[in-house]
């Protein structure tokens, strides 16, 4: 919901603790403001946010925009409060001494994002609890800092031969009864690449460590200098299964920056697309989870339903996975009355089929025995990490931007929140079943009350230096995006945080003391994106 009034809540709270902040005029929207603070207040401000029970949304850096000294470096962090919404904080980094204090002692989920900043900018994060490289793998030339202005991002990096044999420093264990299992990056199934390092005792996992970054494609750098239409195509491929979510986040950040609102009809169609994406992915995942516990019947049934959806998507929106269905300022496809009817009919049919399958799933002891109590994350840990989407909802942490931020069309809808607490595979599956039912109701309501009118607003690029921030509830959870414009309306900097960046941390906790053969089951119930994390 866009309001003209600026949100001063956090600035006042910071002021109470002697942290001076300055509201930045070139950032939009006003209800999710960007505040400039002093560098020495950086960690203190994070501590205050934590005390106010705000959730960390993201930490990132950017070289200055076009109205500043371009060499200048800034770091940003964003927090969210269920009632007082999002706020972005910014501070300047001393370019003579590239250092910024770590906030990981207040927010554990900040650590990987801070490592990302270290890798991409060469900024030293002081007191960071984990100093290892993250997306920048060991074989990269040491001085490569891709997101700095003077780094030539057009030339493929060649490995440094002197660094080719350096291994990532995994958490060691020298006990004789503990053995290590390296898995990946190429996995056994048809999935994305990543490395898991297990320390196991007998059948049980003592510790599992993730090593990601294998599908790092330089998306942030590649976005620089793109026109918004071209940028939207790229944003839609950050993570192929959440193409609507990422396109929406990118488009909305651009629209906020340019201060344009989209027609109501377009927002309804975006809602329909996003909820259809939610249902399709949940159905696919429920089938895959059951398949990992050898309940192949569910897998066959679910993939059938998913295919039915993909076929109607191809017919109604021109793409089986809904790629390129959004436009900046609107949507690419309008819906005829006939298509609306088809969508309503199929959504009803699928929801009914899923309910029937849900009964069978609940009544089958062999699958229930595997999923109940497997791979749990408790409520405290979930809140501490700030787990998002269905993973959070299964563990007593309930952020939902459709409710909190209530952007159109969700301001017209009633959105129930499935409140799980037990945090295991069965709870995550339960949340997904609930979300399928809820999303079906929403889609039908949106289709039945679809407003007349245009599906596209005119795009007018903002001035150089202007930025926009947004948070969209994709099927995996909140996607946060921040876009700053440069000269001629081209993109100058794009930061995006897929929910997986945070939820991957939950998986590491969930698989402790779980038998090794249960790992695929637990992993699938999270189904974090590798591409969305690696960018």
């Amino acid at each position, binding site marked *: 919901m866009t309001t003209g009034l600026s949100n001063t809540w956090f600035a006042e709270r910071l002021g109470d603790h002697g942290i001076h902040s300055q509201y930045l005029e070139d950032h939009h929207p006003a209800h999710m403001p960007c505040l400039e603070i002093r560098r020495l207040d950086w960690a203190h401000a994070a501590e205050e946010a934590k005390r106010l029970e705000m959730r960390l949304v993201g930490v990132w850096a950017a070289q200055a925009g076009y109205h500043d000294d371009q060499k200048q470096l800034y770091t940003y962090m964003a927090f969210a409060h269920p009632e007082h919404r999002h706020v972005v904080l910014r501070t300047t980094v001393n370019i003579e001494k590239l250092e910024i204090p770590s906030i990981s002692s207040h927010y554990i989920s900040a650590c990987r994002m801070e490592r990302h900043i270290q890798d991409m900018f060469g900024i030293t994060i002081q007191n960071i609890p984990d100093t290892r490289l993250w997306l920048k793998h060991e074989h990269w030339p040491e001085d490569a800092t891709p997101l700095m202005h003077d780094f030539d991002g057009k030339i*493929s990096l060649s490995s440094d031969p002197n660094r080719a044999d350096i291994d990532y420093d995994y958490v060691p264990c020298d006990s004789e009864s503990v053995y290590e299992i390296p898995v990946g990056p190429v996995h056994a199934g048809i999935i994305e690449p990543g490395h898991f390092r297990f320390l196991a005792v007998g059948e049980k996992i003592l510790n599992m460590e993730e090593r990601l970054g294998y599908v790092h494609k330089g*998306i942030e750098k590649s976005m620089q200098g793109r026109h918004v239409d071209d940028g939207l195509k790229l944003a839609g491929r950050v993570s192929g299964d959440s193409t609507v979510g990422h396109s929406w986040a990118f488009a909305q950040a651009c629209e906020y920056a340019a201060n344009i609102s989209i027609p109501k009809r377009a927002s309804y169609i975006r809602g329909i697309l996003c909820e259809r994406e939610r249902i399709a992915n949940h159905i*696919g995942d429920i089938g895959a989870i059951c398949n990992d516990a050898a309940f192949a*019947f569910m897998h066959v049934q679910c993939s059938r339903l998913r295919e039915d959806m993909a076929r109607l998507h191809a017919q109604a929106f021109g793409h089986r*996975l809904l790629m390129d269905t959004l436009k900046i300022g609107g949507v690419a496809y309008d819906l005829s009355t006939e298509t609306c009817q088809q969508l309503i009919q199929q959504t009803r049919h699928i929801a009914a089929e899923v309910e029937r399958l849900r009964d069978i799933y609940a009544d089958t002891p062999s699958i229930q025995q595997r999923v109940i109590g497997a791979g749990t994350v408790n409520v405290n840990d979930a809140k501490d990490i700030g787990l998002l989407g269905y993973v959070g909802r299964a563990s007593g942490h309930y952020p939902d931007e459709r409710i909190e931020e209530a952007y159109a069309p969700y301001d017209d809808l009633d959105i129930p929140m499935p409140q799980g607490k037990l945090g295991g595979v069965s709870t995550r599956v339960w949340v997904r079943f609930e979300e399928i039912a809820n999303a079906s109701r929403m889609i039908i309501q949106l289709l039945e009350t679809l407003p007349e009118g245009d599906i596209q607003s005119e795009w007018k690029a903002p001035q150089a230096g202007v930025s926009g921030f947004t948070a969209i509830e994709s099927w995996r959870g909140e996607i946060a995006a921040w876009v700053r414009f440069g000269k001629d309306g081209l993109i100058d900097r794009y930061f995006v945080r897929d929910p997986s960046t945070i939820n991957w941390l939950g998986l590491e906790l969930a698989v402790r003391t779980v038998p090794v053969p249960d790992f695929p089951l637990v992993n699938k119930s999270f189904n974090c994106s590798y591409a969305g994390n690696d960018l």
Partner: protein
Amino acid sequence: MLRILHQIMKVGTITEPLARNQDFEVLGEQLKSTVKKRFQGSLAIRLVDAGSCNGCELEIHAANNAYYDIERFGVHFTASPRFADMLLVTGPVSINMKTALEMTYDAMPAPKLVVAMGDCAINCGIFGQDNYAIAGSVSDIIPVDTIIHGCPPSPTALIQGILSTLNQPEG
């Protein structure tokens, strides 16, 4: 159990004959007989995601669903490159996946058929060749036999692509 049987009976067999494509007309039977002739009825494919967005993987999964049921033609996906006849590669090859891709290719026995699936695998797609994090398209890294266009290619295009690889002259 009764409900499971009821559901199975109700849905029935939904597997379809392979759809015809305008400029590439094939039937599943053709694929099956080629697999039978050249691979004794069983073609094992190893997939490597060398940097894809996961869109291609979704369509590979779809090729295994009951509508397309690629296994009925004797084609299946394997967990190891050691007994794979074909390597299916998706995505532009990221600099962080280049070594893993080369190692997988080296681990395969002959004939080492390679299919580059999707626009990214063919020409780096939207991510671009002029990108510090991308080592190149698949053919820049390992020899490629066939390409399958699409972003992502549909399951039908995938199956047709596999067939056209098998129909290429041996050698």
